[in-house]
């Protein structure tokens, strides 16, 4: 089952959890150019040319990665881990920059993050005689108080409340400052864990992890709702014109690492962005108007001629004119229904301009309709997952096949979905392709896949009683579809990687 294997291969790379060696390597490589200099490595594995290497990280691994880096930096700088963590978060986990800045001017960097001296102390509260907290404006000699290194002291209750409101309400974590107005001292994680209640600690961890993933260029959150995993992938922003990095999360959600959009193979990120905008844009309405309407020569009202003769009478201003030459109808004399000025140059030019505009609209609609059609079918089929299952049960009962034997239906459903997803984006891709030999080959591939997909879809939709007889056909068609899809994606990705496609717009 080709498609099955392929489906799994994506996820399996994420299976080797807690592989610290691996993640460590990742970071060492970071300063090198990870772009396409690594092509050889990509080819070396049995991966298809449109697939990319990636790894799924769970919350504990994200934590581990941070701890490893913090420890590293702490060792190199001879700073306690809390200080190293603050520094790393401050410089958005850019280790090189951190070392540079640290070597250049240690004092100013430490001052900037509010860590002038060493932060190796253990946080503890203190009682101060006649203390009055500036936040609650009360206090006494026996109130527990707390202060960071900056010495701005508040009672523990207020401090805790302050941190809680920052974490819970403002979603802040790594860059919470001392409560004093204007004090830049950052609340280190040791103080924080010392002060806040347990139920907020997990929220704090979560927020800290979030900023870590957000700050790292090689990490992205899975955009699926409620998903807790992040993906690590070495594809960088500048590579996106040459590769479409589709990754599949542990939660089975496939998405593009480049733009977090749904899987949009084989169309590059910049093109789908343009395409989606084009589809949403009102410019197409304007386009339609220019292709299908003319303006009344007198009052400029927009008029669509939807039938009848060339003798137009504007509804608004009652102006009478000829649709052909836009001239006064009264000047046409008796040559009604046969505008004799039609052959004039000005008329010709107007006609050419209109034909051209109409043609470009029709070209767009051609691609859009097919794109929308696959999108629609795909959406329907996604909802039909339960229906497929029902069908499988029904088939089992009717034909006496075993559960294993009716799995081919589920496989077919999956293949259909994948093919439609791919086909959908091939139309967005093709819309931006310039006419040449590669494009023709692409369209042949597309046509082939589309035909096969429609066939498979048709077989799939047949009444249950005919399905058992068709099992072999469906299996064959299924394999064919999967293979055609792989071929199309591989070929397209190959050319994309080599920069061989010619687009009718610029790719950035």
């Amino acid at each position, binding site marked *: 089952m080709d498609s099955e294997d392929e489906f799994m291969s994506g996820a399996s790379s994420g299976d080797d959890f807690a592989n610290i060696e691996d993640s460590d390597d990742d970071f060492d490589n970071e300063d090198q150019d990870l772009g396409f200099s690594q092509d050889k490595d990509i080819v070396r594995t049995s991966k298809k040319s449109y697939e990319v290497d990636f790894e799924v990280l769970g919350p504990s691994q994200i934590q581990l990665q941070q701890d490893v880096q913090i420890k590293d930096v702490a060792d190199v700088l001879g700073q306690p881990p809390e200080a190293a963590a603050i520094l790393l978060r401050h410089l958005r986990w850019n280790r090189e920059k951190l070392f540079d800045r640290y070597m250049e001017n240690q004092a100013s960097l430490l001052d900037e993050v509010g860590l002038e001296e060493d932060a190796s102390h253990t946080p503890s509260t203190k009682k101060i005689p006649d203390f009055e907290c500036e936040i609650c404006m009360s206090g006494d000699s026996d109130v527990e108080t707390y202060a960071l290194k900056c010495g701005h002291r*508040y009672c523990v209750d207020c401090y805790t409340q302050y941190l809680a*409101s920052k974490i819970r309400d403002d979603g802040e974590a790594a860059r919470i400052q001392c409560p004093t107005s*204007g004090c830049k001292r950052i609340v280190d994680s040791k103080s924080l864990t010392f002060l806040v209640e347990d139920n907020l600690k997990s929220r704090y961890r979560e927020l800290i992890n979030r900023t870590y993933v957000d700050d790292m260029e090689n990490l992205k959150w899975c955009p699926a709702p409620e998903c807790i995993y992040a993906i690590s992938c070495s594809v960088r922003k500048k590579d996106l014109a040459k590769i479409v990095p589709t990754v599949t999360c542990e939660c089975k959600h496939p998405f593009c690492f480049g733009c977090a959009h749904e899987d949009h193979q084989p169309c590059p990120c910049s093109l789908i962005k343009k395409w989606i905008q084009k589809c949403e844009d009102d410019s197409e309405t304007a386009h339609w108007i220019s292709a299908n309407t003319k303006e009344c020569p007198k009052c400029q009202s927009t008029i669509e001629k939807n039938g009848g003769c060339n003798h137009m009478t504007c509804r608004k201003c009652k102006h009478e004119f000829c649709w052909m030459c836009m001239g006064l109808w009264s000047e046409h004399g008796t040559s009604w229904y046969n505008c004799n000025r039609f052959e004039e140059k000005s008329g010709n030019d107007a006609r050419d301009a209109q034909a051209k505009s109409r043609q470009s609209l029709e070209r767009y609609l051609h691609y859009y309709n097919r794109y929308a059609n696959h999108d629609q079918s795909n959406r329907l089929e996604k909802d039909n997952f339960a229906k497929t299952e029902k069908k499988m049960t029904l088939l089992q009962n009717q034909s006496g096949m075993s559960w294993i034997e009716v799995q081919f239906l589920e496989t077919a459903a999956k293949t259909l979905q994948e093919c439609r997803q791919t086909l959908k984006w091939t139309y967005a891709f093709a819309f931006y392709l310039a006419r040449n030999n590669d494009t023709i080959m692409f369209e042949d591939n597309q046509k082939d896949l589309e035909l096969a997909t429609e066939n498979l879809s048709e077989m799939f939709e047949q009444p249950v009683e005919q399905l058992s007889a068709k099992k072999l056909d469906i299996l064959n068609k299924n394999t064919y579809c999967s293979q055609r899809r792989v071929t199309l994606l591989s070929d397209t990705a190959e050319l994309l990687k080599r920069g061989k496609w010619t687009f009718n717009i610029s790719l950035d």
Partner: protein
Amino acid sequence: MALPKRIIKETERLVAEPVPGISAVPHEDNLRYFDVRIHGPASSPYEGGIFKLELFLPEDYPMTPPKIRFLTKIYHPNIDKLGRICLDVLKSNWSPALQIRTILLSIQALLGAPNPDDPLANDVAQHWKENVTAAIETAKEWTHKYATDTAT
């Protein structure tokens, strides 16, 4: 709900040691709601004006900033038609160690130093940038019209 000690103390101190040019009086039926008056700073277009504001201390004050709004019409690039104020300490730079007193002083300072580069009222800010003299003139007119005793 009992009023937090902090609010009681702040109110007491506002009465005991008033800030020159600023008054804040809590409503009798709602001690979190204040009537505020700020005198326009000297040598600013708002000089001679007395501006009314309302101030409300939300439930989780002082963890969240007080809500403040001008009730008197004012021509100022950082204050919009509804009297809302664009001031960092009222939003992201709020600190629980700040007080009603300090916030009102900041607002008074804002009257003395309008910042058209960070505008809330775009039309006013643009006017301010394109023709300062004329904008200041309008601000003076508005002050006279809406913020003096002769104004209704």
